[in-house]
C-alpha cells in the first residue's frame, strides 16, 4: 500500500506541472476516476519518473457532486486526454481544459454516469437503443472564467469539406470493433478521430458487486491474449493487500505461463500483421504454431483462450506431468521456425518498405502517452515492468530488454519478434528447476481486503497491465480499475498516423498491437 498525496484541486494543475518538470514525473501510469460518496468525486493519478524510477500517487478531490470539476492535465501528459474522457464518461467529472469532453465509451445519448455510486442501473434509464448514432464533427473544451463559471469553446474536428471515411467498427483491420473516423486528402491521412466503446462491457462496474475471487473471472476476458498476465496482476494485487506470500513453485509456474502467453500473443501479432499487410500465408504459419502453445495451456488449464488459471494464493491446478517435456519440445521447435518467419516476412523487400520509416513515434511522445510495452520499447523507452518493478521470479532470470531506437513500424515489429526469443530464453532457464512445494496457499473462504488502495502491475503482452483496488474492508472492492494496455496506444494513433497513407494506418494499427476489449473494458 502506497502513500497517497492529497492535492487540492485548485493547485493541481500547477503541482502536476512542477512534478513533471522538477521531479521528472513524466510517465502517467494510470488515471483512475473515483467516487468517494460523501467525500466527493475525484481522481487518483499514478506517476512514475522514467529517469529515476521513483513512483508517486496523487489524489485530487472535489466535493461538488452535482457538477464535479477538476483541472485537466492533458497538456502535461498527453495520455491523460483519453483517460479524462473515460473518467468523465464513468463519473461525470468535467475536466477543465481538456480539448475533447465527449463520452469515450458510452453513447452520447446515454443517461447518467454508470460508475457513480448513485447511478440508477435499471433498464428503464438506458433501454437498448437501436437508432444509429449520429457522428458529431465538433467537440467542446471547457474553460473556467475568472468568476468561476464555465466557458464552452467549440472545437471543429472535421469541417464540411473534408473527405471523412469511417473505418470500423466492423472492419478487418481494426482487430475488433474499434472505429476510426479518418479525414483523407487523396490517400494521405489528415486527422484521425478514435471512437471506442463498441465492446465496453462495464467490467469495472461489475467488479464492484463481485467478491474478490469472482472478479478474477473477468480479467481473462479483458485482453484475451494476455489472460495469464492480467489475472496474475490482479492476484498479485490482492495477495499484496492480504500479505500472502506465494510459494516459489507458484512463482515459477506463473512466470513460465506469463511467458508462454506472451509468445502466444506475439505469434498472433505476427499473424495478424501479416494478414493486414496482405501476406496471408504468413498468417497461417503464425496460427499453426500458436496452436502448439494452446495445446500446452489446454493440458494444464483446460482452456485454450480463457484460462482461469491463477487464483488468489496460487494457481488453480498443478502443472500437467507432461508440461515440462512439452514446453521443451516447443522451445526446440519454435527457434528454427522463427527463422522461417524471418525468411518469409521480415526479409521480404516489400514488407521492409512498408514498415521502415512509417508511423514514427518519438520517445517523448511514447512516454507522454504512456504507450508501454513493445510500442514504447520500439521508441527507445525501456519501459518493461519486469525490469522496472520485478515481480514473480523475473529478478532471478537473465533476459535482455529489447529496445529499438527508431520508433517506426519495423522497430515495433522487431521488438516483438525478438521478445519471443527472450521469452523462450526465460522459460528455458526456469523449466528445469521448478521447485517442489504447494501450488496454492490456503486462503479464507471469504476474502476481505484491509482498507486502503492497492496497485500492482505486470508486463502484459502489450504493455503495462495494472490492477488498482480501493477497498473499504468489505468483501467487495469499492473500486477496481484496470490500467488498459491498449488505451494509450489508441490515444497515440492520431499523432503517429498523421501524414501517412491509408495503407500505413493498417500497418500502424497492426504493429501497435492493441486488443479492443482491453481498451474498452
Amino acid at each position: 500500500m502506497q502513500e497517497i498525496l492529497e492535492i487540492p484541486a485548485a493547485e493541481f494543475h500547477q503541482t502536476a506541472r512542477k512534478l513533471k518538470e522538477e521531479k521528472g514525473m513524466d510517465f502517467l501510469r494510470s488515471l483512475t476516476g473515483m467516487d468517494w460518496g460523501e467525500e466527493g468525486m475525484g481522481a487518483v493519478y499514478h506517476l512514475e519518473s522514467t529517469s529515476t524510477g521513483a513512483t508517486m500517487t496523487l489524489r485530487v478531490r472535489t466535493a461538488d457532486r452535482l457538477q464535479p470539476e477538476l483541472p485537466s492535465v492533458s497538456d502535461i501528459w498527453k495520455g491523460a486526454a483519453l483517460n479524462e474522457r473515460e473518467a468523465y464518461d464513468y463519473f461525470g467529472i468535467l475536466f477543465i481544459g481538456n480539448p475533447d469532453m465527449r463520452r469515450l465509451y458510452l453513447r452520447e445519448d446515454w443517461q447518467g454516469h454508470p460508475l457513480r455510486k448513485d447511478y440508477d442501473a435499471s433498464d428503464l434509464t438506458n433501454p437498448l437503443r437501436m437508432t444509429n448514432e449520429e457522428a458529431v464533427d465538433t467537440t467542446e473544451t471547457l474553460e473556467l472564467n475568472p468568476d468561476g463559471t464555465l466557458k464552452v469553446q467549440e472545437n471543429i474536428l472535421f469541417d464540411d469539406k473534408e473527405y471523412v471515411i469511417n473505418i470500423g467498427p466492423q472492419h478487418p483491420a481494426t482487430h475488433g470493433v474499434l472505429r476510426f473516423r479518418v479525414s483523407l486528402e487523396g490517400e494521405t491521412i489528415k486527422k484521425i478521430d478514435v471512437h471506442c466503446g463498441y465492446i465496453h462491457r462495464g467490467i469495472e462496474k461489475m467488479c464492484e458487486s463481485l467478491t474478490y475471487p469472482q472478479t478474477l473471472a473477468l480479467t481473462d476476458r479483458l485482453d484475451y491474449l494476455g489472460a495469464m498476465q492480467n489475472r496474475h496482476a490482479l492476484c498479485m494485487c490482492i495477495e499484496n493487500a492480504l500479505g500472502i506470500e506465494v510459494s516459489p513453485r507458484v512463482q515459477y509456474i506463473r512466470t513460465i505461463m506469463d511467458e508462454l502467453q506472451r509468445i502466444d500473443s506475439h505469434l498472433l501479432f505476427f499473424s495478424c500483421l501479416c494478414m493486414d499487410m496482405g501476406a496471408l500465408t504468413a498468417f497461417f504459419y503464425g496460427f499453426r504454431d500458436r496452436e502448439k502453445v494452446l495445446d500446452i495451456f489446454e493440458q494444464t488449464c483446460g482452456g485454450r483462450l480463457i484460462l482461469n488459471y491463477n487464483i488468489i494464493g496460487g494457481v488453480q491446478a498443478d502443472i500437467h506431468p507432461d508440461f515440462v517435456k512439452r514446453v521443451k519440445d516447443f522451445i526446440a521447435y519454435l527457434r528454427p521456425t522463427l527463422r522461417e518467419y524471418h525468411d518469409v516476412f521480415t526479409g521480404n523487400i516489400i514488407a521492409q518498405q512498408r514498415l521502415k520509416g512509417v508511423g514514427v513515434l518519438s520517445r517523448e511522445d511514447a512516454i507522454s502517452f504512456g504507450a508501454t510495452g513493445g510500442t514504447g520499447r520500439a521508441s527507445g523507452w525501456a519501459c518493461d515492468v519486469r525490469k522496472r518493478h520485478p515481480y514473480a521470479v523475473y529478478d532471478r532470470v537473465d533476459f535482455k530488454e529489447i529496445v529499438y531506437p527508431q520508433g517506426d513500424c519495423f522497430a515495433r515489429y522487431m521488438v516483438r519478434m525478438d521478445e519471443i526469443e527472450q521469452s523462450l530464453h526465460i522459460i528455458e532457464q526456469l523449466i528445469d528447476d521448478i521447485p517442489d512445494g504447494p501450488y496454492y496457499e490456503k486462503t479464507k473462504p471469504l476474502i476481505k481486503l484491509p482498507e486502503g488502495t492497492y496497485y500492482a502491475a505486470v508486463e502484459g503482452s502489450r504493455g503495462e497491465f495494472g490492477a488498482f483496488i480501493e477497498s473499504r474492508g468489505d468483501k467487495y472492492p469499492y473500486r477496481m480499475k484496470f490500467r488498459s494496455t491498449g488505451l494509450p496506444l489508441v490515444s497515440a494513433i492520431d499523432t503517429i498516423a498523421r501524414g501517412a497513407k491509408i495503407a500505413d494506418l493498417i500497418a500502424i494499427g497492426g504493429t501497435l498491437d492493441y486488443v479492443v476489449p482491453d481498451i474498452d473494458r
Partner: protein
Amino acid sequence: MEIKKKPRIKAIPYEEFNDNEYLEKMVRELNENGANIIVGVLDDIVNWGRSNSLWPLTFATSCCGIEFMAVGAARYDFARFGFEVTRASPRQADFIMVAGTITHKMAPVLKRLYDQMADPKYVIAVGGCAISGGPFKKSYHVVNGVDKILPVDVYIPGCPPRPEAMLYGMMQLQRKVKLQKFFGGVNRKEEDPDGSPQEMSETAAPEPAANEQEPVKKEEK
C-alpha cells in the same frame, strides 16, 4: 413431393447430431405446404449449393473472434466444408457469426450489418455473450443475447467455444440450410405483431422489423 427427410453431412451419421427432432419438426412444417416434384428436385440442388458454400462475414468483437480465426487457420480449416471465403463486405457474405459480446453501442451497428447482407442470410450466435450475455449478463452495457436483435439460426455455447464446437455448429447450419425451400413455398410462418400469420418468402425483400419481435428459428446445442 416430400422434402428430403434427413439432411446428410458427409461421413457423419445422422444420429450423431443433436437436435434432430427440431429438424424433423421443420420438415413436417414445410411438407404441410407441399411442392411438386420438379420444384423439389431444383430445391435440392439449390440447397446443396447453398449449404456447401456458406461464406462467413469477418465479424468479431472479442474472445470468440480469435477462436473463429483459429477455425479458419491451418489446424481446423473450415475451408474444407466450403466456408472458404471470409468476406469483409456484408453484401457478399452468407452468414454472420456473432462472435463475442454485443454491447448497447454495437447493437445498432450489428443490426445494420445484418440488414446490409443479401438474402439468404443466416446468423450464428457464438459463445455465452452472444447467446445470453454470458459472464457480462449483469452489466449495464451488454445486450443479453443477440437474439433480441437478430433472428438466430444456430447457437454455439462456450466461453469461447472450442473450434470443434464451432465446426459442429456450422455443420448444423448446413443441415438446416439443406431443408429450405427456394421455389414455390414458404419456409416459415411468422406471427405478425397483430396476431395474423404473415408469410415470409425467402426471396422477398428483407423485413427486419418482422423478425425483430421474436426469433422463431431456434436451435440449441
